[in-house]
């Protein structure tokens, strides 16, 4: 048995969700102490696991479950709020569809810059250069600044650079979802070769077929917690069960249930205040209620937790909690509100109920409608 390639040791990551990156915003939160615009969001909550050398592990979960954050921490791009990650061997990562390319540089310059970042000697990079370009299939554009590349070309070159770095550990985030079928085949062949060579691969993907096909282990994350860990089919089964039957996520009846959800939006001066009133039923000495506001497509915008808000008491019978946000710069459209409840303890069994929230504010492309300016730099 080889020692673990990655040891993830009590990793917790929390962010402050500050809406304004200006002095005024800081003045409001720090000096006037109006914390309404500042919330802490725990993306990962005390995650501990080892990833053994030579294994292929799939991280799965909903959008916003913390899997990409975990990958960034493993990749060394984020420093966890507490805990640490230890690693054996070299690492290359493809986070958020890219290897860290600069738009103003040509493909060639970026390949060499990336090689320098990964610590690959110049001569080695020069030897592999033709293979990298050949694999990516962007020969024609290799001396063109990358801002003219299509997203597919970006990803192809990124993947090529990462694999020709021949890392002991490869992190891949959703990369295989982009690119045409022929390129996907090539990538999957490389992953298979890497597996045979005994390299470690950590994969974040929404494609369960890929997890089933490649991963000998899968980890399911939910709200920053590891909720399932085991063989790929078992964990995927668990994930599907949670997806398919939100009313009964586990075999046991949940100790706390969400019995009613009312979501209201009040728009004035372009800002929409959201209020969610939820009624919970059950018996628990200590329970946590969560409200997630997401776009129609499921991208989470705001996460609220009763624990973070300081409401932390038990429930016996029914309780109603009202969550309120200050004005958000939401665009016109329909949003999703998910209210979840669970008794505090481990394992947590979450019970979720959904509501729709129509917002009639300013029309905009994307979920946010904010005023903006543009000027020459």
């Amino acid at each position, binding site marked *: 048995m080889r020692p673990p390639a990655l040891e993830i040791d009590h990793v917790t990551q929390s*962010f402050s969700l500050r809406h304004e990156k200006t002095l005024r915003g800081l003045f409001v939160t720090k000096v006037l102490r109006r914390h309404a615009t500042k919330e802490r969001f725990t993306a990962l909550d005390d995650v501990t696991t080892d990833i053994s050398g030579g294994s292929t592990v799939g991280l799965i979960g909903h959008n916003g479950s913390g899997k990409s954050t975990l990958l960034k921490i493993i990749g060394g791009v984020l420093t966890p709020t507490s805990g640490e990650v230890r690693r054996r061997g070299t690492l290359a990562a493809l986070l958020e569809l890219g290897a860290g390319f600069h738009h103003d540089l040509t493909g060639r310059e970026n390949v060499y810059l990336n090689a320098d970042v990964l610590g690959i000697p110049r001569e080695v990079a020069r030897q592999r250069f033709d293979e990298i370009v050949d694999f990516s299939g962007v020969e024609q554009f290799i001396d063109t600044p990358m801002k003219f590349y299509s997203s597919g070309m970006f990803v192809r070159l990124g993947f090529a650079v990462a694999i020709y770095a021949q890392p002991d550990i490869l992190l891949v985030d959703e990369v295989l979802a982009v690119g045409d079928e022929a390129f996907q085949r090539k990538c999957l062949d490389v992953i298979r070769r890497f597996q045979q060579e005994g390299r470690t691969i950590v994969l974040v993907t929404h494609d369960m077929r890929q997890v089933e096909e490649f991963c000998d282990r899968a980890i399911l994350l939910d709200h920053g917690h590891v909720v399932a860990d085991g063989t790929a089919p078992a964990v995927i089964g668990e994930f599907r069960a949670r997806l398919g039957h939100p009313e009964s996520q586990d075999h046991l009846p949940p100790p706390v249930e969400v019995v009613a959800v009312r979501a209201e939006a009040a728009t004035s001066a372009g800002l929409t205040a959201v209020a969610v009133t939820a009624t919970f039923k059950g018996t628990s000495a200590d329970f946590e209620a969560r409200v997630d506001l997401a776009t129609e497509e499921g991208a989470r915008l705001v996460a609220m937790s009763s624990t973070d808000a300081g409401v932390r008491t038990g429930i016996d019978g029914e309780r109603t909690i009202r969550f309120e946000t200050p004005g958000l710069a939401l665009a016109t459209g329909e949003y999703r509100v998910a209210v979840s409840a669970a008794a505090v303890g481990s394992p947590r069994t979450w019970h979720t109920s959904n509501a729709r929230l129509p917002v009639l504010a300013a029309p905009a492309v994307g979920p946010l409608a904010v005023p903006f300016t543009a000027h020459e730099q």
Partner: protein
Amino acid sequence: MTCVSAVEVVNRREPFWRGFWSAVAEIWAARLLLVSLIRKELSIRYRGSVLGILWTMIKPLVQLAVYGLVLGLFLGFGDQIENFGFFMFCGLMIFGLFSEAVTLGTTSIMWNAPLVKKVALRRELLPLSTTGVAIVNFFFQSLVLVGAMAVTGHWPRLQDVPFVIPAILIVVLLGLAGGMLLGALNVYVRDVQFIVDVGLLLLFWLTPILYGWWTVQQTLADRGLPDWAFDVYMANPLAAATVAFQQGAWPGTPPQEYFDSVFALRLWGTVAVCALLVWLAQRIFNRLQENFAAEL
């Protein structure tokens, strides 16, 4: 893949007071990357421009021409200060080194968001690389200076030339500290880049670049202010660096001697303080960089 590599901690919060030397060691190990980042910055800056790096000389030369015309000719400074053109160019060069290091450093993290968000590298390399760019430009400008000396035959006093060393050290260290700190803050509060613009404007006029330091001393004395008022003015490390650089590189003599062994000592003291500021800036930077990937 048979050998087992040593365990390495990927990332862990460091205590505030410790970790500077390990950062230095890591940066030293990545020095080739630093060189290629500097090259990248330069090549992006002058991409598609016909004159390329020549632009770094055109700007100070145009400044020189305008100030020379207005201050030197119209206001008559040219008659009061020997080789006024050289005098101003020395000041513009040394101040330009600082202001470029700080301005480019302030936006270095923001402009390199793709690198910061996707690859693990010591982020100090980014403000370091912009400081490197400022040094490269300074080098080209000093070629112009030396060229002009050769053409006109006006040379500085040889025994004073070593003064340029502490002057450059002060400005580089201060520019690096400023670039690191402000670059990190700018990720969180985007006002910083605008504050920097205003701050540099103030500093420019509070530094004896377009006028002689002796004029300040004289004016303060004439107004009946005590001697320490001038010491306060000179406490600005940029003023000290500029005066030292002029002493070492300007082919002329000030009407009064300010230079004595005490000033030389104070210059090196300032260098030490600036080095301490680099340490402090790195420690603050290290804490702030933890969340760069999430904040950008």
